[in-house]
């Protein structure tokens, strides 16, 4: 297995997160059940002639990729790999609504062109003039991790810089459907903190996080990506064992892990996947979470990786994300665990560089 250095990162989310220097210090816990992103200054990164036709997902993906590339000082990546659970949902909804409203006539091209999952990756490539490998992975809560796996394989092919990220946007109609089936929290339950709400569902949000992976460490390097593993289905009692196997495959044990980043989203039906681990295997490890800041979306785990990168670089664990009282010393090895509604589990291992 090679070395994959994370030389540039970016985060567009429901928080003021586009400035990596600020980290998580100004983040505020989300208190509504559906929270849109904090819009960055799109015009700083996208030509006015292009911006008017871009949906929110495309805009935030293009901005996030620009920030990460700029930070890594990479003008042209050798691959663009995007994860998106739902793709450009708003334009998909708009196009489908037009079909129904207009009885399958008078269909205009813009929403259709932009309704596919790979529109974000395509628009990033168009903006850069990049004709390299460009693939989008669509796999629910492991869309981003699948992209990471592919990025790692690209280095085996000899590539030097790979842009990899996740993007998902809120679609109003789709969110209403999720509300109907109880996937979204009832708003009044959020008066308490997310994890104390003890209610079903999650806070729905949107965001885009991108990372520039390189085969060489740069001055700005945040961390090394060491390994990724995905499981479509796991029983709660299997998670600890799978995590131990994952660590063993990387010649580590749980005592080597300085911080664990967990995808707790406050869903009383499924957070037990995490709490079981927290109370057993991870009982003596510094535990952090992030979905009280990011909300839930299919690629929210990329927000988790962005958080992990900032922890490793700053060597500090902010109190506003820490779950237990255990102090970490130096932060060398960080493992991320995420799942959504008991499916699509992922472990990601990062190491300081």
């Amino acid at each position, binding site marked *: 297995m090679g070395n994959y250095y994370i030389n540039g990162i970016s985060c567009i989310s429901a928080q003021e997160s586009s400035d990596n220097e600020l980290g998580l210090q100004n983040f505020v816990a989300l208190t509504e059940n559906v929270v849109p992103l904090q819009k960055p200054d799109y015009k700083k990164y996208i030509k*006015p*002639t292009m*911006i*008017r*036709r871009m949906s929110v997902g495309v805009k935030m993906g293009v901005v996030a990729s620009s920030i990460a590339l700029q930070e890594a000082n990479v003008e042209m990546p050798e691959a663009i790999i995007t994860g998106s659970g739902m793709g450009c949902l708003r334009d998909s909804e708009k196009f489908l609504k037009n079909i129904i409203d*207009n009885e399958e*006539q*008078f*269909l*205009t*091209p*813009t929403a259709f*062109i932009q309704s596919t999952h790979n529109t974000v990756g395509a628009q990033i490539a168009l903006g850069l003039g990049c004709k390299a490998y460009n693939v989008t992975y669509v796999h629910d809560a492991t869309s981003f991790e699948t992209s990471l796996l592919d990025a790692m394989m690209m280095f085996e092919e000899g590539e030097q810089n790979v842009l990899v990220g996740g993007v998902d946007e809120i679609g109003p109609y789709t969110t209403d459907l999720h509300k109907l089936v109880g996937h979204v929290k009832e708003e009044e339950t959020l008066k308490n903190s997310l994890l104390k709400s003890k209610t079903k569902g999650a806070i729905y949000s949107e965001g885009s996080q991108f990372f520039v992976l390189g085969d060489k460490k740069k001055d700005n390097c945040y961390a090394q990506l060491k390994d990724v593993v995905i499981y479509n289905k796991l029983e709660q009692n299997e998670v600890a064992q799978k995590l131990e196997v994952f660590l063993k495959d990387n010649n580590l044990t749980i005592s080597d892990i300085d911080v664990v980043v967990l995808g707790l989203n406050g869903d009383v039906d499924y957070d037990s996947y995490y709490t079981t681990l927290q109370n057993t295997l991870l009982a003596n490890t510094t535990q952090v979470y992030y979905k009280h800041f990011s909300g839930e979306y299919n690629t929210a785990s990329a927000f988790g990786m962005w958080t992990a990168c900032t922890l490793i670089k700053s060597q500090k664990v902010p109190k506003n994300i820490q779950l237990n009282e255990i102090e970490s010393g130096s932060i060398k090895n960080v493992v991320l665990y995420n799942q959504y509604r008991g499916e699509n589990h992922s472990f990601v291992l990062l190491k300081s560089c």
Partner: protein
Amino acid sequence: MEDLKLELKNNIIELLNLEDVNVDEIKDDDSLFGDGLGLDSIDALELIVMLDKDYGIRLTDPKEGKKIFESIEIMAAYITEHRTK
């Protein structure tokens, strides 16, 4: 005719998502494509659909659009003459 011109300007701004353009900034004889509003071929398709949907004008030859969409003035005149709804 003046009402129709205003309606067209509002529709174009909304349909083509011209976020930074106000109705007052589009003059009746401004060129819609090229150096004027800077519309492109995808916008032309949107306008062709708008003619059909809102005014019942079906352009059989897309090349006709080049003349019809030259300016708001010309569009309004064409619509007034050919509209079926």
